[in-house]
């Protein structure tokens, strides 16, 4: 039995996330919090923990909610759509790594919101402060490293913190498909971004008038909007497929996840750029939101290392054997 459509329980998870974000994380919130030192308020971070979002995919026996990557996917789509602030993506991953290593103490710290985790990208770190953990991934392992000190650098995405870090001790180092999970999460977040700009573009194209008609009348604008809808449909299908394959423990899950991430990264970059073009002059301003989605799309496309690492996983199987 396979279905790529959320069941009722899953729809409720997505709705509860969406409801909370609609109420508490408007784009104004995102902009406000982007000006704070951590990029997210203590209150909001605590809410994430209270809502159980940080524990969603952590097994119940170590204090988690015990749901799957499929449910996490639904969470990340909403987070991406709203540009939700804070390092959820890396803290959630860290909790999964700690859980796999049986480090219930760390799991507890992470899912309670007490401790956060960032991630290492090249010689930079994203969303890591002194005292936080740093997620370090290979195709087959996940590690958590103490962050001893950081020296902030200016980042491109104003809602994310970038730094150079001095690493401390390695707290956890465990085998597991964490990079595969991370790719599904990131692809889901990118899907949220694509869906958000698709809807922004459609709204603007319906309402902005030039030459006496809505600009969506013009094929150039219309076709760019259509491309976003197509991208969203393709990416949603592939991310969902990867998620259910992962949860079922199927052997092609890593291939499907890498494909989802490659596809999502490509189309999110294109859709967010096209969205600026659709908005014309206003889309090029800081006050309008298009650039925030563009920058988020590029951040997420680089967060798990260079895309070619993902391409290697995509190219690895000699055959797609339809399992």
């Amino acid at each position: 039995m396979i279905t790529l459509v959320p069941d009722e329980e899953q729809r409720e998870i997505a709705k509860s996330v969406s409801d909370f974000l609609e109420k508490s994380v408007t784009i104004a919130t995102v902009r406000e919090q982007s000006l704070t030192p951590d990029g997210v308020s203590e209150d909001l971070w605590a809410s994430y923990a209270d809502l159980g979002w940080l524990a969603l995919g952590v097994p119940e026996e170590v204090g988690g909610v015990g749901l799957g990557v499929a449910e996490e996917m639904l969470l990340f789509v909403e987070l991406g759509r709203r540009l939700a602030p804070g390092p959820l993506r890396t803290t959630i991953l860290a909790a999964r790594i700690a859980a796999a290593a049986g480090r219930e103490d760390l799991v507890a710290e992470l899912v309670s919101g007490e401790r956060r985790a960032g991630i290492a990208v090249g010689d930079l770190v994203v969303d890591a402060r002194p005292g936080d953990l740093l997620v370090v991934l290979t195709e087959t392992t996940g590690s958590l490293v103490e962050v001893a000190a950081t020296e902030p650098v200016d980042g491109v995405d104003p809602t994310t913190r970038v730094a150079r870090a001095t690493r401390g001790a390695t707290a956890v180092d465990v085998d597991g498909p964490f990079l595969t999970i991370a790719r599904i999460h990131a692809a889901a977040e990118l899907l949220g971004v694509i869906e958000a700009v698709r809807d922004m573009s459609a709204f603007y194209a319906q309402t902005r008038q030039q030459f006496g008609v809505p600009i969506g009348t013009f094929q150039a604008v219309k076709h760019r909007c259509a491309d976003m809808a197509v991208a969203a449909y393709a990416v949603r299908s592939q991310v969902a497929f990867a998620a259910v394959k992962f949860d079922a423990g199927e052997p092609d899950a890593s291939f499907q996840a890498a494909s989802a991430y490659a596809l999502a990264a490509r189309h999110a970059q294109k859709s967010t750029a096209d969205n600026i073009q659709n908005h014309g002059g206003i889309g090029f301003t800081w006050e309008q939101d298009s650039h925030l989605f563009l920058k988020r799309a590029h951040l997420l496309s680089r967060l798990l290392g260079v895309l070619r690492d993902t391409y290697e996983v995509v190219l690895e199987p000699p055959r797609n054997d339809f399992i």
Partner: protein
Amino acid sequence: MKLIPDADSARFREEARTWLAENVPREPRPSGGEALKEFDQEWQRRQFAGGWAGIDWDVEYGGRGLSLLEQVVWYEELVRAGAPRESVFAVAFGHAGPTLIMRGSEQQKEFYLPQILRGETPWSQGFSEPGSGSDLASLSTRAVVDGDELVVTGSKIWTSYGEYSDYGEVLVRTNPEAQKHKGITWLIMPMHLPGIDIRPIRSIDGFPHNCEVFYDEVRVPLANVVDRVDNGWSVAMSTLSAERGPGFLDHRLSYIRAVDDLIEVARDNGRLRDPAIADRLAQARAATAALRSMAYYQVTSTTKGAQPGPETTAIRTFFVQVQQEVARLALDIVDTAVLEWSHTTREWLADFSATIAGGTIDIQRNVIGERVMGLPR
């Protein structure tokens, strides 16, 4: 959003795989003539005899009565087994059959559907005309009621396998006075009637992929009208939505195998070490993976029997771009390919039709912009 391995599904796939391993034709498909038609008919007959025809069609018309999911699995296994991809039954399975199921009368279903499943009667399509391409509704092939017959005069173009077909799904104008979408009728055209002249059209790859069909006062029984006279536009929309549904899925899935093959070629000839090639191959493979997942998404979000929605146009738009990218990639992987005639160059040329045939990509993107995104016409 869940995958629970179950014994029934596994058994279905296993049986399909075993049967196909033993039954897929090993001889090459003839390139044309009666031999081609016979080959396709024989392969379809064999599938029917094995119980593999019309997986999701109702049992009463000779189908298996299973779900769309099993239909998808069957297509996957066809591709996996390297079964013949093209068939003179493509229109029958992808267009005419589903249209009759959705819109035909009980008599029509009982008469035509089993013939298709048994591999007897290939169908062809007669929608486009020389003057009516993207603007299909402007078609001008006339049909005048005369007693209990329609008398058809005009011409149709881009009719694939027209010369092999026993029936055609043909749109005719029955009311020239009405608004252009409102005077059209969807007709079952017996293709051997007097007054029909079928002429092949040579395509840019040198092969006659389709035909122009001329109708000169061809008399067709009124009983061959599907739904009712002058309501053919709505029936045609059912046909087109079916076209973009899982009907032609084996074609889409075959591009998964095409990319598998390209990766192997590139690994063998060293081009896979060229990142300019490898990056594109990876993106192409990810996109073909999505062709498969889109099929699962579609069939698990669609109620069986419902008319497929506008998302099918999204699938098609995505697919035709993948097709052309894969064809270009193949050209770039084989060094002097562009000079020398080969399977690669032929596919490359043939795939130029992907963004044209069955509605140009320009029109498809309009449809998505308007029907999915709510943009003004």
